[in-house]
């Protein structure tokens, strides 16, 4: 057996180290380490409750809006208020814009550049992929950055700036868009649709959003390829390298449900266990600490605490290890779409695990679906309807609240308890904490650790290419993971 350490593992968000035990040319065991700790839960303790609105977006500059929405939802839950529908439409638009920007960033900047590695120099698609996806210089990279900047104009119009807005409050949105703003939003969405249809998919968004099964997906990839669109390039490479055979994870998926309006989620919440759908089981959550640099015992986030202990025996990560009734789960776009019952994703996954290929396909399908939802929300925005409620004064509050949202990378939960207006307890479980958790007390590996087992590793400099694909197929965000 040989050992290999990959770090800094880049083109992910934040700090990641991957340690592999390799036997007979395959990964026998993997350990992933989140190598940075900042301590937001400790910073929040004792603060005035509304300070969480200013501090929490700064947990993560990538999914800053998701952190804002989870914070606002947790405090709204505590205050017993429901944001007005118009405010919620605006919040959803900004949240969806961030999630879509994340999917595009991941595909073009983080995932696809790995196919321009020298190890693939003899492949028939290599020159084309390099021209398109080479890190820092590919033509697709400059195209996506312009499209992404344009898409994020939605944040300028509705919430002032990105990242780190304070516009998302327990009572709703701090800014009521007027008629002109609604037209500007439509204009941005029209440009976003054009980019996705012309550059990414080479076909109408509706084709991608409504794909029904494996065969239709094959046709869509051929259409994209013929149109010179990037989804086609991905499909061709995925077939050639059999990406579907790698990175197979657990068969348990979870989603908190995404884009709530009037209590109804556009993508339904729940769990999927080997093809069987269950309700979400939040009371069964526990964060394990046996291999994490923290002292303490496993606990539900309503009780759990965060006490760093860099000397803990056997620990190898600043990430905790959340489990549902003792079991690891996979979260993210694929979990969200499977749980929401998207027919293509159900067909691809069946009762089995996700893999490198289906994780990417899920993000692509979801990107198309998000734009259709956003177009609907903009139509429903009413320029003169209220966006924000008068909220009860924070300094007199006591109680507890929970905010459960879906960030681009999966399920994000905030658990807060307030006493006399001050934060007494704050715990966060981020999407990548689920996916990139270390082992738990029973020795069970986290989702990506498990998915890495069996991945081929050749000798030599770039022999770990498939490891890179597997890890990046999860789109980790380590900043969130540890917070």
């Amino acid at each position: 057996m040989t050992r290999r350490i990959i770090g800094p593992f880049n083109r992910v968000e934040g700090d990641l180290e991957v340690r592999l035990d390799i036997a007979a040319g395959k990964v026998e065991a993997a350990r992933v380490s989140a190598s940075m700790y900042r301590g937001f839960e400790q910073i929040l303790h004792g603060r005035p409750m509304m300070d969480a609105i200013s501090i929490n977006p700064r947990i993560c500059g990538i999914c800053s809006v998701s952190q804002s929405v989870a914070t606002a939802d947790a405090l709204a839950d505590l205050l017993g208020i429901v944001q007005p529908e118009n405010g919620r439409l605006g919040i959803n638009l900004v949240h969806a814009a961030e999630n879509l920007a994340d999917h595009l960033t991941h595909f073009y900047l983080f995932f696809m550049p790995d196919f321009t590695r020298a190890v693939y120099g003899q492949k028939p698609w290599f020159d084309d992929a390099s021209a398109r996806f080479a890190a820092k210089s590919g033509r697709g990279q400059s195209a996506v950055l312009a499209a992404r900047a344009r898409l994020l104009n939605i944040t300028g119009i509705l919430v002032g700036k990105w990242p780190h807005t304070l516009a998302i409050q327990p009572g709703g949105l701090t800014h009521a868009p007027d008629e002109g703003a609604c037209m500007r939003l439509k204009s941005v969405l029209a440009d976003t649709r054009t980019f996705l249809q012309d550059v990414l998919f080479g076909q109408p968004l509706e084709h991608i959003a409504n794909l029904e099964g494996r065969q239709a997906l094959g046709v869509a990839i051929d259409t994209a390829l013929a149109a010179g669109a990037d989804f086609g390039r991905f499909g061709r490479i995925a077939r050639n390298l059999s990406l579907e055979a790698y990175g197979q994870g657990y068969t348990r998926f979870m989603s908190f449900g995404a884009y709530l309006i009037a209590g109804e989620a556009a993508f339904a919440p729940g769990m999927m266990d080997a093809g069987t759908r269950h309700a979400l089981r939040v009371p069964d959550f526990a964060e394990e600490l046996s291999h994490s640099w923290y002292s303490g015992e496993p606990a539900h986030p309503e009780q759990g605490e965060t006490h760093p202990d860099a000397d803990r025996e056997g620990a190898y990560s600043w990430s905790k290890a959340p489990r549902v009734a003792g079991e690891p789960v996979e979260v993210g776009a694929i979990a969200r779409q499977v749980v929401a019952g998207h027919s293509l994703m159900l067909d691809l996954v069946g009762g089995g695990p996700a893999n490198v290929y289906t994780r990417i396909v899920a993000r692509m399908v979801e990107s198309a679906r998000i734009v259709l939802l956003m177009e609907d929300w903009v139509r429903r925005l009413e320029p003169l309807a209220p966006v924000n409620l008068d909220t009860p004064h924070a300094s007199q509050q006591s109680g507890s609240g929970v905010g459960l949202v879906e960030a681009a990378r999966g399920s994000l939960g905030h658990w807060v308890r307030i006493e006399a207006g001050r934060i007494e307890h704050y715990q966060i479980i981020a999407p990548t904490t689920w996916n990139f958790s270390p082992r738990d007390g029973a020795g069970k590996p986290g989702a990506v650790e498990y998915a890495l087992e069996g991945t081929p590793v050749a000798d030599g400099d770039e022999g770990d290419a498939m490891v890179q694909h597997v890890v990046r197929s999860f789109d980790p965000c380590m900043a969130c993971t540890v917070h």
Partner: protein
Amino acid sequence: MFNILWLQAGSCGGCTMAALTAEDRGLIQALKAFDVNVLWHPALSLETGEDALGILQDVLDGRQSLDALCVEGSVLRGPGGSGRFQMLAGTDRSMAAWIADLALRARYVVAVGTCAAFGGIPMADGAVTDACGLTYEGDEAGGLLGSNFRSRSGLPVINIAGCAPHPDWICETLGLLATGGMEAAQLDAFSRPRFYADHLAHHGCSRNEYYEFKASAKRFSHLGCLMENLGCKATQAAGDCNIRSWNGSMGSCPDAGFPCIACTSPGFEQPTDAFQETAKRAGIPIGLPVDMPKAWFIALAALSKSATPERVKSNAVSDHVVVPPARLGESE
């Protein structure tokens, strides 16, 4: 060719995310105009693991020249001075140690964002990481590199403060460095580039008429001035935030209805009171405009309040314009 190396210390990644929207086409494209070459960036470069470490080692050993070291995020010195709250993955050394060594090789050292500049949110009360900026710890000079640090060019660390900074502050600072360099006189007292730090965030605020008449928002979504009740510090914070706008033609914090929290200032993470409330003494905000005598401010505020048009009074406490402008006598 102007070579930059970008490292993420104790960061949320938000400065990089902001930079990716620079000039509507992303930092790397935007920097091409200034012949800037990115040697390595954690989010953007192909090189990973040993290949990435090889680039850092080449800089340390002098095989690769380094024009600017850009650091994003606070330096985490704990626990107990070991730096173990952030080890550079794939190495046995702390990020703090890597930064300290690489800084000695760079012509310029640039702190991208308030965390790298002053410590920022990770050094707020309650934090145990012993976080600091490169040459500041809050408003006290020192930090990781010490108050006497000068990079090879002779300049102190250049602090592009902001949480996150405007992407074009990053782009224009690097552009200045790449096309002739900067001098100490181009930096303010906290070593921030004066081209944006010589302004106040208040300048160009779209709520200026409400400010002039002290017609204040009472709660979020109201159109009125955010200074009296909702904690806005734009009259005290460095930045041309409302002169150039954010994320397209529209954005800024107060324009979108929430207070400036002075994110370009050292110590912004620890306000006197809550972030979204105006700290007051005897009913008077304690944070008044930086260079205005208090007595005059109070006198003018009283005068302007008594002269406030009905239109401004009504609109200030509404989430849309309820009384449009009209000449006196023409309105109903």
